């Protein structure tokens, strides 16, 4: 255990809940509230998994994923995207950008934990 997840989410209550359930599952959780510093945070923290929202202040989840995929160091990093928008178009764009897995809001805590584990091969 002791896997490191970086959560990029601007909704403090969602961030708090996810942090709580993942921490209880044994994860080491870092939280970043805006999109602008997200890529730098990934480079600094070198997490095993990134969970991010689609709509973030500063920089959209889509752009962040595109930047991560463009960097050889993070091109294979598992990325779980939380999205409140069920719109096919945004999802398609995100899938093309390289999102590994989508989690549609409102999600069940158990699903987030199970999928996070699956993404890092636990």
């Amino acid at each position: 255990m002791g896997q490191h997840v970086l959560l990029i989410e601007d909704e403090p209550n969602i961030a708090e809940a996810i942090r709580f359930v993942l921490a209880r599952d044994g994860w080491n959780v870092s939280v970043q509230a805006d999109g602008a510093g997200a890529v730098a945070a990934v480079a600094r923290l070198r997490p095993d998994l990134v969970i991010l929202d689609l709509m973030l202040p500063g920089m959209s989840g889509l752009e962040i994923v595109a930047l991560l995929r463009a960097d050889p160091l993070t091109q294979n990093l598992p990325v779980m995207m939380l999205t409140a928008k069920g719109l096919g178009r945004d999802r398609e764009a995100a899938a093309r950008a390289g999102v590994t897995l989508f989690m549609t809001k409102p999600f069940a805590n158990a699903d987030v934990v199970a999928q996070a584990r699956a993404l890092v091969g636990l």
Partner: protein
Amino acid sequence: MMPGTVLTGSRIREQRLAQGVRQADLAIRAGVSASYLNLIEHNRRRVGGEVLVRLAQALGLDVQVLAGSADDGLIDDLRSAVASGSDGGAAEIDRVEEFAGRFPGWAGLLAAQHRRGAQLERSVEALNDRMTHDPHLSATLHDLLSALSAVRATAGILAETEDIDPDWRQRFHANLHKDAERLAVGAETLVAYLDGSDQPQDGIAAPQEELEAWLAVWGWHLGEIGAGDAAALEGGILGLPSAAARVLARAWVAQAAADAAVLPLSAFLAAMADLGPDPALLAQRFGVGMLPVFRRLATLPGSRFGLVICDGSGTMTFRKAIDGFALPRFGAACPLWPIYTALSRPMSAVASVVEAPGRPAQRFAARAYCQITQPTGFGGIELREAAMLIWPDAGSAGPVVEIGSTCRICPRAQCAARREPSILSDAG
């Protein structure tokens, strides 16, 4: 040959002339007024039931001879249904008239279903458009879903974590409370928004069609509006289902009033008697542009003129149909219509005779003109508006342009202007 579009009124006239009977005499024999019979013969009044039976008796004919096999509007609707169907090839389009004649009830039902289907499709499109492009709705929904996600995640923790630390529990309770408030406000906003907005769900018709149906009820003639009528007119406008149609109606009413002011009815009728229905001469006589004359001609009381107006993109913005000249309900029309010739030659008078497909083919005179305006001044945008007057012109000789309604339901197989295949079997 494709099934014809002979109208009942034309058949009556044909049979009467063939027998050498004067209109007035037939009217007396059938017990209708001569003027009413004249309207019937020119297909300006629908005829059926008892009157048709009396006319048939007076001509010594079986009523079926006059009634024909089926209503032409129904045939058009059936063709259009086939055109819009994903599997239109399966329908026996060459036997559409036989179908409508033998099973008028089923045919009517199919046509009605097709119209309803088209309306619903448009409603879905409108709603979809609204969901996709309405930033307020989208933002509110996003906010609601975010709050809901937080509530679900937090409530899940509280419900599933037995040994939760009291401090954490306290915090999650507070979060839950805050998010519940947010949900309440968001839901209220959403309900108010949906309630307060004009609902296009009714889906009766596109705004243009609502306007046209409403104008048809008024006999298309709004020109001479007294103070008393203005209230009735406004009442009618308020009764239109969609806000978009109400906006269009107000604009049309204002324009009709402006047209009437520069082209007063009695003077205009006198000038018509003097000059004939020549839009250019009439425009010159009154010192006005061509388009007001076009609109005035088409909206005189009992006018026999059909009118189509389009903008610079070729999109029809106004349609007053006349019998035998089919105007497509949706989408683009026949590229050979003189209105499009005019659109590409602004400020130039286009006069031609066109022939609509059918058996027999019907000829129409057409006058088209495109006006250019610079609503934002010199160097600004240039707007084009083209209009086309049409009226039956059976007797004309000389060159004729073979036109259609729209490619999908046009039988002219060899047409050089065809942009997509027709559903009609003999169109190849």
